[in-house]
C-alpha cells in the first residue's frame, strides 16, 4: 500500500518509526511495531540511524511486511555506492516493499565506526532521481530493467533550519527528482512550522510534521545544543521541568503540537524513541 494512495484519498496520515536492533534479536523491534500497528498507516525502519551499525533496514522492512505492517524503507547514501543502492531498491521491491524514504544520511563520524569510509556517492536528491528512473524501467546508466518497481518515494526536510531557504530549494529539487511526500525533522514550534508550510505549500506535495516525544527538560536542552534543525522553545522546557508527571506531560505536549499543526500539514510522523507504548495516548489526545 502506497502512502501516496492514502494522501490522494484525502487521509490525514500517521506514521511512526522503529529501529532495527544492534544484533539479531528482533523481538523488541517487532513488539514496538505491533504496538504502533493499530494506530498508524506505516512504520519507517531507520537505516543505521546516527551512523550506528545495526541490522539492516531492508531485512527489517520485510519482517514488518510479513506481519502486515506497512514499512517505509529508509535508505541513506552513507554506506552504499550507486550500484548497491540500485540493487537494494530492486531487492526491496521484489520483497514487496512499496514505500521508500530517500536520505543522505548522517556522517560516519557521528556513529560507532568513525574511521569508516563515508560513501556519499549519491545524495538524497540524486538517489530520488535514480529511484524514479527504476520506476520508469531503467537504471541510472539508462539500461532497461526486466520488471520494474513502482515505489512511492519520500524525502525529508528540516523546517527549523536557519536560514530556511536552502532547505526549501533542496526540497524543490527533491520534488523535481521524484519525491512524492515529505517527513520533517522534529517540530516543537507550531507557529514557525506554519510559516514554513506557507512557503512549502506551492510545491504541492504532502508534508508530515515530525513529532518527537520530549522525555525530560534535559533531553530538550541536549537536542537544542546538539541536534541540527531542532529547537525546543524555553516555554516547553519549563513546562516539562515543572511537571509532576513527566510522561503524562510529554504526551500532553506532543498531542497539543499535533492539534496545532494538523490544519496546515497532511500528516504526522511520530518518533517515539523508546516510548512507543505512549503513542496511542498522544494520538487520543490529538483526536486522531
Amino acid at each position, binding site marked *: 500500500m502506497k502512502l501516496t494512495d492514502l494522501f490522494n484519498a484525502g487521509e490525514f496520515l500517521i506514521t511512526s518509526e522503529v529501529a532495527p536492533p544492534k544484533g539479531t534479536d528482533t523481538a523488541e523491534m517487532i513488539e514496538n511495531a505491533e504496538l504502533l500497528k493499530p494506530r498508524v498507516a506505516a512504520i519507517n525502519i531507520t537505516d543505521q540511524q546516527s551512523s550506528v551499525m545495526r541490522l539492516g533496514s531492508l531485512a527489517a522492512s520485510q519482517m514488518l511486511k510479513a506481519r502486515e505492517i506497512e514499512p517505509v524503507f529508509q535508505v541513506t547514501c552513507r554506506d552504499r555506492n550507486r550500484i548497491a543502492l540500485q540493487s537494494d531498491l530492486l531487492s526491496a521491491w521484489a520483497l514487496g516493499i512499496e514505500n521508500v524514504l530517500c536520505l*543522505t544520511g*548522517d*556522517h560516519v*563520524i*557521528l556513529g560507532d565506526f568513525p574511521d569508516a569510509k*563515508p560513501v*556519499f*556517492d*549519491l*545524495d*538524497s*536528491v*540524486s538517489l530520488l*532521481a535514480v529511484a524514479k528512473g527504476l520506476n520508469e524501467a531503467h537504471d*541510472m546508466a539508462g539500461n532497461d530493467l526486466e520488471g520494474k518497481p513502482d515505489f512511492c518515494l519520500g524525502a*525529508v*526536510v*528540516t523546517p527549523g*533550519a*536557519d*536560514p530556511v*531557504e*536552502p*532547505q526549501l*530549494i*533542496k526540497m*524543490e*529539487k527533491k520534488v*523535481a*527528482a521524484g519525491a512524492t511526500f515529505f517527513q520533517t*525533522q522534529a517540530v516543537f514550534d507550531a507557529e514557525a512550522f506554519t510559516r514554513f508550510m506557507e512557503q512549502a505549500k506551492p510545491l504541492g506535495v504532502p508534508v508530515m510534521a515530525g513529532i518527537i516525544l520530549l522525555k525530560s527538560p534535559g533531553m530538550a536542552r541536549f537536542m537544542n545544543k*546538539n*541536534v*541540527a*534543525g531542532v529547537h525546543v522553545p524555553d516555554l516547553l522546557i519549563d513546562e516539562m521541568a515543572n511537571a509532576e508527571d513527566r510522561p503524562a506531560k510529554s504526551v500532553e505536549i506532543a498531542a497539543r503540537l499535533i492539534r496545532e499543526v494538523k490544519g496546515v500539514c497532511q500528516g504526522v510522523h511520530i518518533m517515539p524513541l523508546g516510548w512507543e507504548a505512549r503513542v496511542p495516548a498522544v494520538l487520543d489526545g490529538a483526536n486522531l
Partner: protein
Amino acid sequence: MLVTERKPIDEIVRFIGGESSVFLLGCDGCAAASGTGGEPEIEELKDELEQRGIEVTGWKVIDFLCQKALVRTSLRPFAEALGRADSVVVATCGVGIQATATVVDKVIHPACDTISLGGIRGEWQGEERCAECGQCFLEYTGGICPLTACAKGLVNGPCGGAKDGCCEVEPDVRRCAWDVIYERLERQGRTDLLRRAPLQVKNFAKMQPPPEIRGTRKWAIDMKTTEGATT
C-alpha cells in the same frame, strides 16, 4: 601542479548567460603549463567570446591565482576594467577559481575543469581545495567547492546536519559549506542560482588520473606541455 582542461566555449557562454561584459583572468602557474590559462589561451578565449558578442573589458594573467594576496595586488591596476565587467571568467584550476572568487567581489565563471593528477598538488594557501573532479561546477556555488568543503561532499545542496551554520562533523571549527555558499550568493543577490543548478551526479571515473599523466612526474609533464606549446 594541477592539470586543467578548458571547458567548451558553449558551456562558458552558457555560464555568462545574459551578462554583456566580462573580465578574463588567467594563471601563469599550472594553468599556463596545462595550456589553458596562459597568455595565448586567454587571448584565444577573448577572441572566442568577442566573436559571440560578449564584450571583454580587460584581461590579466597572474603568476599564481591560488595566491590570494598576489591576486589582490595584481588586480589593483585593473580596477576600472574589472568594475565595468558584469562578471569574471577565470581560466585556471579549482583552487585558483575559488581563491579568485574569495578575493574579487564579483560573479565568477569557471573556464576550466581540473583533472586529476593523482597526488601531485598545487598550492593550497587557504581554505580553497580542489578534488580534481574534472567536472567543475563552481559556477553554481558562488566559487566555493562543496565537493571539498562539505564533509559529505554533497553537490546538490545542504543536508540537515548543520547547526548554527556549523557542520555536524566538526561543529566547533567547521562552517557548513552550503551555509557559506548561500551567504555569498545571498550577498550577490544570486540565490536563484541554487534553484537553477542542474542535478549534479559526479562521474568518479573522471577523478582517476588520465593514462597519459598517471605515473608521469611533474617535470615530464612540464616538458611535454612546453614542447606542445612551442611546436
